[in-house]
């Protein structure tokens, strides 16, 4: 029975979502980490809320980056461990489709969740509500790009000892433009100037990555699996 490409994509995304909801702690851990890390900064710096506003975009984005990195490790690991990944690779659907499906599911579960939780964190950091829309838009674009960069890194580091450290070492330098433009967009929104330029740049980075990363991630998986 030949399954069509679109149906296969939907099935894999659905499978990822089901598996994650069976272990809700895996979903909540990155979000809780995000909340905790953002609280560390005000506590460590003991600033007034109005002063926090100045560092808020950077803190928000660094915390989002770090908590996304935490969840990237699980993108391929559990499937690689029990052999499901090889079965999927042999299924005839094409490894690229599988990679795209798994990464989309990963973004829905982590990146989108981060975007939804961000207003809470924003309030804790003193970001004005007027800036929320830009902030959430920038986070949505940034986390999607990050999921794809992470897919490349995760594909390269499956099954390595100290894989997570290496994953961070690989992904973070490539993610610095995201950090710079994401924080800039949020910062402009806070100060009231137009964030459109920075958002366009983020969107461009996102499109660039989403177009090319699937092939790099597939190549990475082929290297690790063969």
């Amino acid at each position, binding site marked *: 029975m030949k399954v069509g490409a679109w149906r296969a994509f939907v099935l894999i995304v659905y499978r990822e979502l089901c598996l994650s909801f069976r272990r809700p702690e895996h979903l909540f851990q990155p979000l809780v980490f995000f909340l905790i890390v953002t609280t560390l900064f005000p506590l460590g710096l003991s600033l007034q809320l109005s002063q926090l506003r100045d560092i808020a975009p950077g803190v928000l984005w660094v915390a989002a980056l770090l908590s996304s990195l935490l969840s990237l490790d699980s993108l391929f690991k559990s499937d690689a461990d029990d052999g499901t990944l090889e079965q999927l690779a042999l299924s005839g659907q094409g490894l690229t489709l599988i990679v795209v499906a798994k990464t989309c599911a990963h973004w829905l579960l982590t990146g989108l969740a981060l975007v939804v939780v961000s207003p809470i964190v924003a309030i804790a950091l003193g970001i004005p509500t007027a800036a929320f829309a830009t902030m959430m838009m920038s986070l949505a674009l940034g986390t999607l790009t990050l999921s794809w960069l992470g897919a*490349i890194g995760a594909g*390269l*580091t499956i099954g*390595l*000892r*100290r894989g997570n450290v*290496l994953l961070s*070492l*690989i992904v*973070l*330098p*490539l993610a*610095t*433009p995201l950090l*710079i433009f994401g924080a800039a967009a949020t910062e402009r929104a806070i100060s009231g100037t137009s964030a459109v330029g920075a958002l366009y740049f983020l969107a461009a980075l996102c499109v660039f990555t989403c177009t090319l990363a699937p092939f*790099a991630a597939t*190549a*990475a998986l082929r*290297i*690790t699996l063969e």
Partner: protein
Amino acid sequence: MWTWFYKLASPPYVYGVAAALMPWLLGTAALAMVYGLIAGLAFAPPDYQQGDAFRMIYVHVPAAIMSLSVYMVMATASAVALIWRIKVGHAVAAASAPIGASFALLALVTGSLWGRPMWGTYWAWDPRLTSELILLFIYVGVMSLRSAFEDHARGDRAAALLAVVGVVNVPIVHFSVVWWNSLHQGATIVKLGAPSMPGSMLWPLLSMWLGFMLFYGAVLCTRVQAEVLNRERQAAWVREAIKS
């Protein structure tokens, strides 16, 4: 003519060529650098703005240019190795990475020492400095990834993929001074039109650049010999090669 090209894919040929070339490359590198240093340090006139501090250009700029060039060599060798499965490509990439990383570090440190008297600070989060730092991190990532695998062939391929992915950073470093308002000086040599530097300052700089390039070639030859040996230990040609 193309047979020469095919020969480059052969490990024993590359080993022999590298062994033979290395002393010549090192010798000419030394000559170019001696001239560059003497002419640059003693004979080039002091800059009217920066005084004698500008002389740091004679190590900073060659190191920075080479950090990018070596990355391109590494990325190209990696791509060749991945696409056509030519193992010599992995040897060249593995050999180039530490050299390129050391050049990137040299560029950052010499730039920092130059920045202190000129800009008043050892560091600035400026597009060019930041992207060069990221280049250093990517080099380190490639080297770490290669050494993390127990299966060396797999490690080579993974590091090669990462090197190719990281190549996006190279144009960012080069064009950062054009695309953004940067503290760092814009292009003075590699640009359209005549270089905006007088000859007495320019020639030693070009000589140092050439010297660094030849030096990279010499060190690459030695490292490639080692990398090829490590990947081909049991092959028949090795017996003859290491006797010499």
